[in-house]
């Protein structure tokens, strides 16, 4: 039985301490140890983006990060995207634009889009599509997702 490692990190701005085996991915620990099931398990091999989280504000596939790697770092999951008691503008726009159907890819898309708009507040359609190339969706054809991100970008720029 591999020895467990004690890890300290910030998850959604909360200081967290957990122990895990070195072979466990961040995705596994978030979901199975910490009960944060909003980050979804799909391909589990870095090809679909359903498990996108922010690691020190960089979007990563949690299935490709070992849990021990987040020692001393800050992770934001979908649970940490919404402000207390409300919805992030991106979440709001996903609802308004019917940008989800089954919804399994949605948390990943929202986290990825947050990272996009943090860096590029006025992205072109092409920029949006290429940024989101690592997030697969099988239900929507991406049409309403892109529109939701475009609309959210406009709203966020207006608020500044």
């Amino acid at each position: 039985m591999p020895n467990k490692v004690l890890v300290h990190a910030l998850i959604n701005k909360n200081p967290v301490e957990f122990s895990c085996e070195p072979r466990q991915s961040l995705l596994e620990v978030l979901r199975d140890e910490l009960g944060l099931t909003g980050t979804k398990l799909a391909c589990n091999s870095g090809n679909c983006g359903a498990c996108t989280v922010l690691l020190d504000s960089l979007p990563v596939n949690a299935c490709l990060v070992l849990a021990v790697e987040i020692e001393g770092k800050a992770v934001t999951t979908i649970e940490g995207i919404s402000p207390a008691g409300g919805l992030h503008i991106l979440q709001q726009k996903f609802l308004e634009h019917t940008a989800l159907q089954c919804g399994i890819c949605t948390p990943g898309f929202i986290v990825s889009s947050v990272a996009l708009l943090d860096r590029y507040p006025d992205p072109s359609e092409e920029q949006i599509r290429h940024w989101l190339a690592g997030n697969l969706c099988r239900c929507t054809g991406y049409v309403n997702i892109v529109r939701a991100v475009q609309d959210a970008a406009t709203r966020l720029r207006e608020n500044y």
Partner: protein
Amino acid sequence: MQSNSSQSSFRVIGSSPVRPGDADKVSGQALYGIDVTLPDMLFGAVLRSPHAHARILSIDTRQAEALPGVKAVITAADLPDLTEKIASVGKWGRYLQYQNDNILACDKVLYYGHALAAVAATNEHIASEAVELIQVTYEVLQPVLDVEQAMQEGAPILHADLRSGANKSGNQAQTNLASHVQLTRGDVEKGFALASVIVEREFHSATVHQGYLEPQNATALFSASGQLTIWCSTQGSFSVRGQVAEILQIQPVHIRVIPMEVGGAFGGKNRVYLEPLAALLSRKSGHKPVKMVMSHSEVLSATGPTSASAIRVKMGADSAGRITAATARLVYAAGAFPDSPVGTAAGVLFAPYRIENFLVDGYDVVVNKPWTASYRAPGVSNAVFTCEVLIDELSEKLGFDPLEFRMLNGVHEGDQRPDGQEYQRIGFLETLEAARKHPHYTTPLSAPHQGRGVASGFWSNGGGRSSASASLNSDGSVNLVTGSVDLTGTRLTLAMQLAETLGIPIEDIKASVTDTDSTGFADGSWGSRTTFATGQAVYKLGQNLLHLLGERLAEIWQVPTEQVGYADGVFSAGEQKLTFKELAAILSENVPVVASAAVNPTDVGPSFATHIVDVEVDPETGQTRLLRYTAVQDVGKAIHPAYVEGQIQGAVTQGIGWALNEEYIYAEGGRLLNPSFLDYRIPTCPDVPFIEPVIVEVPSPSHPYGVRGVGEMSIVPPPGAIANAIYAAVGVRMEVLPMSPGRILEALWAKGLPKSP
């Protein structure tokens, strides 16, 4: 984006409210099968065959059982013996055996990835390690992967006892041909003799998968008292219950299936794979809950993709542009066990066109690939691809505009479908008209190697058994309950139909999908049937509820029931009036108000669609870029237009993947080489343009609100439309799916275009 909208005005139907539960999905709170967690839960893993075809000589599980943390190991020996049951049900018994053999291989493994054994352990890592410790000795056999080869004499035989349905002459030879279906009308020889142009081509399509993101998963708890509870990702909770009952030989009433939110299905989550395994492991491990989640490579290699096919089609038309005859020979790969969708394909292939003389032969052939399952209009996209390419060729050779040619030959109400049924009110011509009038059709293309293609298609949609029940609360709100699994929004479309029927606000209805213990029977959410068939149940339920309310009010008012009227949310009899809410408050003090309804509609309104696509082909790389896509579809009546548009866009995108990139790539020995999203390439965000859905509404007479199924139709035209656009762009007629860059280059080089320097 509507045209031809229906005349009647609805209060709720035709609007696009946000579904309350969607807030859970954007915040990560919605619970899918993968999210289930129970106290003291074990994790399961499956041993799968590395061979495409082999006899199992022995399985030794002792080392696996000895690994610390392992609580149970199962093989086919743990499945109940079905010999007697099969003997008692006759021919259909063979299907029961196939079902069991697919769950856990018994004598032979029949495809790479075929399950042989399963393990439950205290965590998923130990379970995976234990699987590696199971020792199997195989006698490796020669596999056969191609349908034409499988039908040849001397081909490796998958099932020693399989006899072809075509062998009515008594020929009892071993075969891989499971069945042969034939549809015929008129005299094709005479028909071809009348043609001034005849075109004939042989097409091939590869195996493709539904490509849902959430892998198959199941959590089972088999209690010591013999009650089995299953949480799973499925389109049909009652279907799962029925299958598990058969496989494990326990009564369905002792099985409770709880359908979780589903992360994509598209037809691939009807058949069970993990549920019986998790149940057996739960029982064998001392009645602990066991959770099993497939890896993505397991999903691709060992669930149910759709059939690869070889299709030869011949069509003839006269100089007036009328199709005079058509023949088709469809050979479909069923995978390891019989029952590909070739029969369905044979029935819909020529359905949009008036053809007096046709002959369609469909062959269902087993090969050493996973057992095929349904995929959005099963078997149809690759079949219609062939027909639409030939239609394009005929119209070009005869000098007709492609939409005009289809209009000339398009079916009308009263015409006969290929299966002999008569078309009721249908909207094919309306979709052609809407496409022709759409600005897309006449926008000029500006650059070299750009081309425009069109294609049409037909899909029958499904009926099936549905039920729904409701209870009225004291404040006038209604709890609506159904067993119809909500894949992408039917909770809301059903609530909307009930709101419309009852004349109450949509906000006053809460629709829930509950487990098999808590609601009446429903067939799975397949065949684009939920808004249609369960909608009929909901409509009937609404009528029943209003009737019940009328009766109760008649008692209160001391008038005959027939005198109580209801309109615009108000009950009245003479001068007396009460609103729906007021009545609810009064009645809640007395006998609870509950109602239910059940249906099994067989009269189903079919769909038609016509799509337009512009492409640009790079003659150096063979890559096809999609410039513009317009998808016109007759939906009967769009209950929730935004959802309908989403269905069209999603279906088109799957059709695009099928057309351009997706295929299973096998090594010679039958190992699947690309079981991952990296190499099984589905469309990504930069791959597709804004797809414009155009809703045409020709109400179906077989639904009270005119609904036709919408989900499947638009996966059908894309391969044909894209092929026709590629022809317009670079002059090659593609005969293969997918039309990936390498294949387009080969076609260009064969035509004499120079290879890159």
